[in-house]
């Protein structure tokens, strides 16, 4: 049974989420995997290492028009006779996976967190406070994968790369402007995240958080009030109304742990909380905690991280 995996490969290097999705697709159905993407990404043949035998790329598609991309995925699905379509549960995948499912009358599992067990896909519901098991009843299925759900495999031979030559119609969604707010590790796919809250007292105090993040090769994040007060950019806001993340390590500094914040980070594998209030509710969700003043604790963490890096 052949499998299609639709990935967003924009950027200077292939995103980790794309490599995860190809790995997942190769493990899901057992047959050949055809990766489908768009734009001007280079190095697509390296997706062979993750399990793709072929990559089909629509070079002329630049913008994020879900209709064009849906037509692309469906055309390749039809050509290959694939019965499983894998996407990433990111902004692009969320515009495409449900559309493909509706177009093909295929059952859709949104945000699967691993391979199915007994034919049932596990996904998080109620903002991570429960899990649901989903069965797909249709002959064709669409599965979107939550980032950081599977370890990337490597070692296969390079994939063949073909350009898609079909007509995808005119774009009805176009990018007018992209306001960049700095580089760094994208939050949804970060394996480690260092996050600050109102306890940091002001944007001028973020230096130690950024330094710790650098030492740990982590992304920086913040709580909602911090983003709302413009101390940090909105795309760094993690929580129920911001970005939901599931890194291996989440370090929360000066964040009390409101229910809405927890909802966006409670899928983190290890949670560390640093707060001077021992009654902060976040300690109940934490694996490790330090009751102390962030401004005294952070320098000690940075020193220890530097020492560890020097020893490695």
């Amino acid at each position: 049974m052949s499998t299609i995996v639709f990935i967003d490969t924009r950027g200077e290097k292939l995103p980790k989420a794309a490599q995860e999705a190809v790995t997942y697709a190769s493990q899901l159905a057992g047959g050949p995997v055809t990766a489908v993407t768009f734009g001007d990404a280079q190095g697509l043949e390296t997706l062979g290492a993750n399990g793709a035998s072929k990559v089909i790329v629509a070079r002329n598609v630049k913008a994020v028009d879900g209709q064009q991309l849906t037509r692309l995925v469906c055309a390749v699905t039809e050509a290959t006779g694939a019965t499983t379509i894998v996407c990433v549960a990111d902004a692009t995948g969320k515009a495409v996976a449900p559309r493909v499912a509706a177009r093909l009358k295929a059952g859709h599992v949104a945000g699967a967190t691993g391979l199915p067990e007994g034919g049932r896909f596990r996904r998080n519901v109620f903002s991570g406070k429960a899990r649901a098991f989903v069965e797909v009843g249709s002959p064709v299925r669409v599965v979107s994968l939550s980032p950081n759900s599977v370890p990337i495999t490597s070692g296969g031979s390079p994939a063949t790369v073909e350009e898609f030559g079909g007509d995808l119609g005119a774009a009805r969604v176009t990018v007018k402007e992209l306001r960049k707010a700095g580089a760094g590790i994208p939050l949804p796919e970060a394996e480690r995240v260092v996050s600050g809250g109102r306890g940091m007292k002001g944007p001028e105090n973020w230096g130690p958080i950024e330094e710790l993040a650098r030492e740990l090769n982590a992304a920086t994040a913040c709580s909602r009030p911090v983003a709302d007060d413009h101390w940090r950019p909105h795309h760094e806001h993690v929580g129920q109304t911001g970005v939901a993340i599931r890194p291996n390590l989440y370090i929360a500094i000066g964040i009390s742990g409101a229910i809405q914040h927890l909802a966006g980070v409670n899928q983190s594998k290890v949670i560390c909380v640093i707060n001077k209030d021992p009654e902060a509710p976040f300690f109940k969700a934490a694996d490790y905690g330090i009751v102390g003043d962030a401004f005294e604790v952070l320098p000690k963490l940075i020193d220890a991280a530097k020492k560890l890096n020097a020893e490695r």
Partner: protein
Amino acid sequence: MKILVLISQVPDTTARIAFTADNTQYDGNGVTFIVNPYDEWYALVRALELKEAAGTGSVITITVGPADTEATIRKGLAIGADEAVRVDARPEDAYQVAAEVAAYAKDKGFDLVLAGKETIDHNGGQVGAMVAELLDLPYVPLASKLEVSGGTATVERDVPGGVEVLEVALPCVLGAAKGMAEQRIPNMRGIMAARTKPLHVVPATGQAALAATVRFELPPAKGAVKLIPAEEAGKLIELLHTEAKVI
């Protein structure tokens, strides 16, 4: 401008999460149900703002659900929607809901269809995109700002590393996220008016679900936090390296 807003009924944000004895259904006994916050705070309020700015038009909400969703639907009317539609069916999966919404909307001439970015119970974020596909319309998820001018919607959304500004041809479907509007609290006048606003119940077309949630479970209980004295804070890094093995 004629705007359709998708309204879903969900358990209150702070409600306990429990399931029936066989773990196949959410146990809603004693739980307060609300309008899904993304549908209410962002999609519905922005729709009302656009109508108010234009000085003309209408905002209609649509819900796929049984009769016990009507109290929640009236809340949408109290906030300011002109009328509401309830498709008389129990929601089974996103496709079934989207197909019912699309069947209702296809010949009504909506300029804009707004949905919340996801519901806070199922967290799927699927229905808006499926409605767009079934109606052959453009769709943008995670929209945090929306302006409409002529036949074009200008939409902003956060992307990793910045903000993307998109132009979308109308009619279109958008998934609304935080930032699109500020929450409105219904006033007494709105609550009274909601009682007399039209709530149309339409029969379902009988669309079949394509996927089924067959079981729920709660995550395993969390162990106690391991506290490290502040004066020995550096030990945390050591533990994350040697014990948790995450750095």
